[in-house]
């Protein structure tokens, strides 16, 4: 798996969705998120080891992603951007040691 194969600036479809999401299109945002949701959920589950905490962190990550969608274009790829948010959400979860 390499960076270029995982959806980035060269995946026009994603950036169209992201543009629409930035314009306030919640459905486009949802479509974008659905692509990564299983992987993000798995990541949160492993990080926090507890389904409830993982669920909460995931919710938090989704809210953050929606709030900060304007910053996504500064990341190398949508995938990288979403995982960074998930890493942050888990790090801030009450269950995670500092």
């Amino acid at each position, binding site marked *: 798996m*390499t*960076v270029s194969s995982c959806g980035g600036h060269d995946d026009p479809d994603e950036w169209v969705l992201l543009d629409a999401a930035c314009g306030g299109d919640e459905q486009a945002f949802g479509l974008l998120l659905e692509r990564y949701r*299983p992987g993000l959920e*798995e990541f949160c589950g*492993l*990080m926090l*080891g507890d*389904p409830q905490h993982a669920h909460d962190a995931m919710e938090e990550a989704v809210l953050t992603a929606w709030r900060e969608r304007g910053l996504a274009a500064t990341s190398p790829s949508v995938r990288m951007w979403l995982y960074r948010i998930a*890493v942050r959400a*888990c790090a801030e979860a009450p269950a995670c040691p500092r």
Partner: protein
Amino acid sequence: MNPTGSDQRLLLAAAQAGDELAFQRLVEPYRHALQVHCYRMLGSTQDAEDLVQETLLRAWRALDRFEPRAQFQTWLYRIATNACLDELERRPRRPELIDPFPDRPVGEAEAPVYDPAARYAIREGMELALVRAIQQLPGRQRPVLIFRDVLGWSAPEVAELLESTAASVNSALQRARATVEEHLPAPAPAALEPDERELLSRYIDAFERDDVDGLVALLREDAVLRMPPQPSVIGAQAVVRFFRETAARGDLSRMRLTPTRANGRPAVVVQRRTPDGGLAAHGVLVLEISGGAVAGIDAFINPALLPRFGFSGEASGGRS
């Protein structure tokens, strides 16, 4: 496997409308995978069977909340995982037996911590032992280990994600692996207890001499042979018959057993004698001893396990 086909969509719609038969047909293809998943979570075939029932019951009750666009399999797995976690919380702690691990590491120190099968299990649901071990890691090492060893990202990718360097990712990974390895279940007690050794050597001897009655006598009458995902064999007579007629094709001495310990329990490494006088890797049997007799046997028929115990993993070896 996903209900994208029109048949499955119809079944789902019918099931959501309350058609129980349609529900049975809808979930049938997932039953086996769920059973394997629950077994991995619980380490017991019997509990796994119960939890598959519980999962399907919960799924049936929650079916009207299932969003047809979501993945049905993922949804079932999530329900099963939650049901298993509830079960684990409810029941008293029992030692887990996910996969036999030698008590003393054999072979090179560089052996990988996780085998591909374990990784696969994590993708399917979660391998409890590893999930617990991950929880021991400090905040920074945790995502590094998950991305590298579980999700399979490359070091540069993880470095980019964490806005770090590949070198620092690798050094965090080394520390994380050491910690995880420490916490993975590979109980330390080394030597066999004297009475265990005695029982084990009589057990091996009975195989060597193709002694059916002798072997039956070493097993408790209600002994269970577990070999998920296949159904268990119950009762000393039935277990020995299975060993002799099915596994050893009519002659117990065709199997060559070597004593060892795995997961804190007495165990035997099993090899098959080949017609040319060689030995072929077969698997590992982990014994559960109770009251001076064998009460349970967990069979792991997988030649690939043997190198962990210092044997060749070749399915068919040359002259020994």
